[in-house]
C-alpha cells in the first residue's frame, strides 16, 4: 500500500536549499529544491562518511556534501565519479505546491543506517 503524506509547501524549502524531515524511526530525510522548483528527497547521510547532505550547497541537480565536498546526484542519491557509493533516495510527489513523501517508504527504507558519531560518545562506541 502506498499513501502519500504532506510534508510542507515547496515554498517552505529555500531555492537551491533544503529542509530536514524527521521520521518516527531512522535517520532524517533531506528534501531539496532546485532553481526549477523541482523537489528531491534523499536520506540525510552522505555515502562517504555520513555527512548531512541537507547542509550542502545545491546546484543543478546535485548537492555537495558539507564535510568533504563529494557531489551527490539528487535524482539517484549516487556519488559522481570517480567517487563511489549511493545514499537512499525517496519518492517525491508535488501536488499544487505541496510536497508529499511516501509513508511506506518513510516507515521502511534505510531504517538500520546509523548516524555518524563524534566527541566523547565516539570513544564509548
Amino acid at each position: 500500500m502506498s499513501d502519500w503524506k504532506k510534508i510542507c509547501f515547496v515554498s517552505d524549502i529555500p531555492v537551491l536549499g533544503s529542509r530536514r524531515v524527521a521520521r518516527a524511526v531512522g535517520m532524517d530525510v533531506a528534501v531539496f529544491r532546485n532553481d526549477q522548483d523541482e523537489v528531491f528527497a534523499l536520506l540525510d547521510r552522505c555515502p562517504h562518511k555520513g555527512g548531512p547532505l541537507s547542509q550542502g550547497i545545491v546546484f543543478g541537480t546535485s548537492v555537495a556534501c558539507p564535510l568533504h565536498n563529494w557531489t551527490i546526484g539528487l535524482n539517484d542519491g549516487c556519488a559522481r565519479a570517480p567517487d563511489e557509493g549511493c545514499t537512499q533516495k525517496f519518492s517525491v510527489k508535488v501536488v499544487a505546491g505541496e510536497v508529499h513523501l511516501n509513508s511506506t517508504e518513510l516507515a521502511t527504507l534505510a531504517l538500520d543506517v546509523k548516524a555518524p558519531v563524534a566527541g566523547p560518545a565516539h570513544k564509548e562506541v
Partner: protein
Amino acid sequence: MKKSRLVMVGNGMAGVRTIEELLKVAPDLYDITVFGAESHPNYNRILLSPVLAGEQTLDEIVLNSWDWYKDNHITLHAGKKVVEVDRVKRIVRADDGTEVEYDRLLMCTGSNPFILPVPGKDLKGVIAYRDIADTNEMIETATKYRKAVVIGGGLLGLEAANGLMRRGMEVSVVHVMPTLMERQLDSVAGKLLQQSLEERGLKFLMGAQTQELVGGGGEDGKRVTAIKFKDGTELATDLVVMAVGIRPNTTLAESMRLHCNKGIVVNDTMQTITDARIYSVGECAAHRGIAYGLVAPLFEQAKVAANHLAQFGIGRYQGSLTSTKLKVTGIDLFSAGEFQGGEGTEEIVMSDPFGGVYKKLVLKDDKLVGACLYGDTVDGSWYFKLLRDGRSIADIRDKLMFGESNIGDAGHEGHNKAASMPDDAEVCGCNGVKKGTICKAIKEKGLFTLDEVRKHTKASASCGSCTGLVEQILMFTAGGDYSATPKTKAMCGCTDQGHQAVREAIVANKYLTIDSVYKAMGWKTPNGCASCRPAVNYYLISSWPKEAKDDPQSRFINERSHANIQKDGTYSVIPRMWGGETTADELRRIANAVDKYKIPTVKVTGGQRIDLLGVKKEDLQAVWKDIGMPSGHAYAKALRTVKTCVGSEWCRMGTQDSTQMGKDLERAMWRMYAPHKVKFAVSGCPRNCAEAGIKDVGIIGVDSGWEMHIAGNGGIKTEVAHFLVKLKTAEEVLEYTGAFCELYRQEGWYLERTVHYVNRVGLDYVKKRILEDHAGRKALWERLQFALDGEPDPWFDFGSASVDTRQFDKLSA
C-alpha cells in the same frame, strides 16, 4: 533529429583527448568516426621510452582500450590511412576504400620524424623513433645485434640511446652540435648531462656531421654496417636510429588545399583558417606560428576544440609556455622559458659540478623568464609557476635560488624528493594516500594532470601541502611536460574564466547578482557549483558593499548556519571574547548553557576563545541567545580572533598595552568577510608571547611604538610574517591594518590566504599601496569602515544578516 557526423583523422593523444573532452560536455551531439594509421588503440606516446628501456610494457601505456571506443559508440578504423578528403562533398576516403561523410572534420595527423637526406637512409636497420613499430624494432634488434648509433643528441635521441643501452647494446650518440640538448639546456648543463651519461656507458661523438650510411650487411647485403662522417672517419654499427627532430605531418592537409605553414594553420578556436568545418589539434597544427610537440599544450588545444565542437564556443587557445623534463631514470633535469639568457637579462647561477648540481635562473626586469636545473629539480614546478605568472621577484630575489623551501611543511614526514620515497611511504597525510597508490592510478587510469590525480586518488585534494610531491610523482610517472597548464587557471569546471577576470568584470560592470555574472560571462552551468558560487558571492559583496545582496544558499554551510559543522553533523559555537579577555559573568552564562543544552565538549582554542562542541542545530539559536555574546565568526572566511598577550597592564616586561590594542583592532574589524580566514595577534614586547610572527597581521609592541608584520601563517606551511612598517600610535596601527585588510579583501582570490596573496602580488606592491600611497591607504581604510558600518551580528540580527532561520527547524513526517 539526425546527429551530426564528426570524423577524426589520426588516432593519437591530442585527437582522442579532444573526443574525450567533447564527450564530457556534449555526449550525444555527434556520430563519431576515427581513422588511425597504426593498428593500435590510442596509447601514451611519451611512455615509449620507458617501454624501450624495459621499465614498462606496451599494454601499460594504452590510454584508451578497444572497449572504450565501443562503449562510447565510436567507429574506429584502426590500421586504415586516410588518403583523400573531398571538402566539397565532405567525404573522407581511406586507403582500403572506406568512405565516410562528415559535418565536422578533426585533423590530428601528428608529425613525422625528420630523416636526414643522406645516402643509405633507406637501408635495413635505419629507423626513426616515433611509434610502437619503431620501438618494437629496436627491442628486436637489441636481441640480435650489438652496436647501435643514435643520430641526434636531443630529448628523443638520448631517451632512445638510454633505452638501447639498457637493452644491452653498445650505443654511440652522434650529435652535430657541441653540447647535448642545446634547445633545452645551456652548455654547462649539457656537459654535465653528457658526463653523467658517459658514466653510465654511452659514447658521444660531438660536432659530428653524418655523410653517409654504409650498407652491405645482413644476409641480403642490404643492412647498414657503418656510419661515415664528413671528416672521413667511420663507425661500425648494426642499427642507426635517427632522432633529429619531427615535422608536422601536413601531406593530407596540403592535398586538401588547407593552408599550411610549418603545420596546418589554425586560429585561436583551433579551426583551420581555410575551412571552418575543419579543426586541427596536436603536433600537426600550427597556432600563431608554433606547432607544439609536448603533450600539455596539446591537451589545452583539445579542450578548446572540444568546447567549440560542442557548440559552446567560448574557449580560446592562446598559446602555451612549456617546460622540459628528460625521462632518463635517475637523471634530473628541468628547463623552461628563456634559459639561455641574452641581452637585457641577468643570471643567477649556482654550480656544484662535483656534487652534480647546477642551477641557472634568468631574470629580466625583475621577473623570472627562464630556468635551467640539473641534478636538483625539486623547485622546477615552482620556478615554472613564477615564470608563468610573470610576477615581480624583486622581493624574493635573494632567496630565489634556494627554491620554495619545503622545510616546515607538515603531513608527509618532511619528504621533499618524491623519487627517493618508497612506494609505501605516505604522500598525502590528510587522506592517507601512499606513493604506490598514486603511481598505480596514474598508470592504470592514464592521468596527466594534478586535478585528475586529485579526483582519482584524493592525494593533495584536502590541505594541499603535498601538491609539490604529487606533481613530482606525476612528472616521472606520466612523463614529460605535465605542467604546462594554461596561463590563467579556470575557477572551476563551470567556466573558463579565472578568478581575476571574474572579479574585474564584477567591478567594471557593476554586476550585483550571481545570475548576472553567470549570464554575462558565459557560465556553462545554470547555477554554478559548490566551488564557484561561494567565490562569486564573495566577490559581489566585497566589491559592492551595501548594494550586492548576500546569498546564503551560495555560502558554505558554516557561513550559512553561523557555526562550524562537525563530523557527526552537530555544530560548534565559539563566542567572541574581545582580545581574548573574558569575565566571570560571561563564563557563568557559558557554563549554564553547557549544562542546559548538554554540550558534550568545552575546549579552549588556539586563538584564546572557548569552543563549545556538539551543539545540535536545533539548539543553535537558543545557545546564542543564552550566552548573549557576539558571534566569534570562527566559522567564517572573516576576521576570527585577535590573540593578545597580557601586555604592560600587568606584565613586568611589557612595553605596550597589547590587550587594549587587540581589543580595539577586534572591535574595529570584526564582521569583516575576506577571501579566507584572517587572524591577528598583538604582543606587548619583542618576546612576542602572542605569536604575532605567524598571523595575517601581527603587531609587536616596542618601547617606541608598534611593529607591523603581515602575511604570516601558522598552518600547513609555517610562514614567518614579513615586517611591513614601524608605527608610533594606536590610531596608525588601526589605519594601516585596516588598509592592508581592505586591499586583501579587494584583490585576494577567494580561498587565498594573505600569505599566498602577498606571494602572488609581491611584498613591494603591498608596500607601494600601503606605505607610499598615503591618500590611497586612507581611502582603503575608509572604504573598509564604510563596508563594516552597520554590519549585523548574525547571531542576533537574523533579518539583516540574511540568516534563513527555517534551517534550524526540522519538518516532521
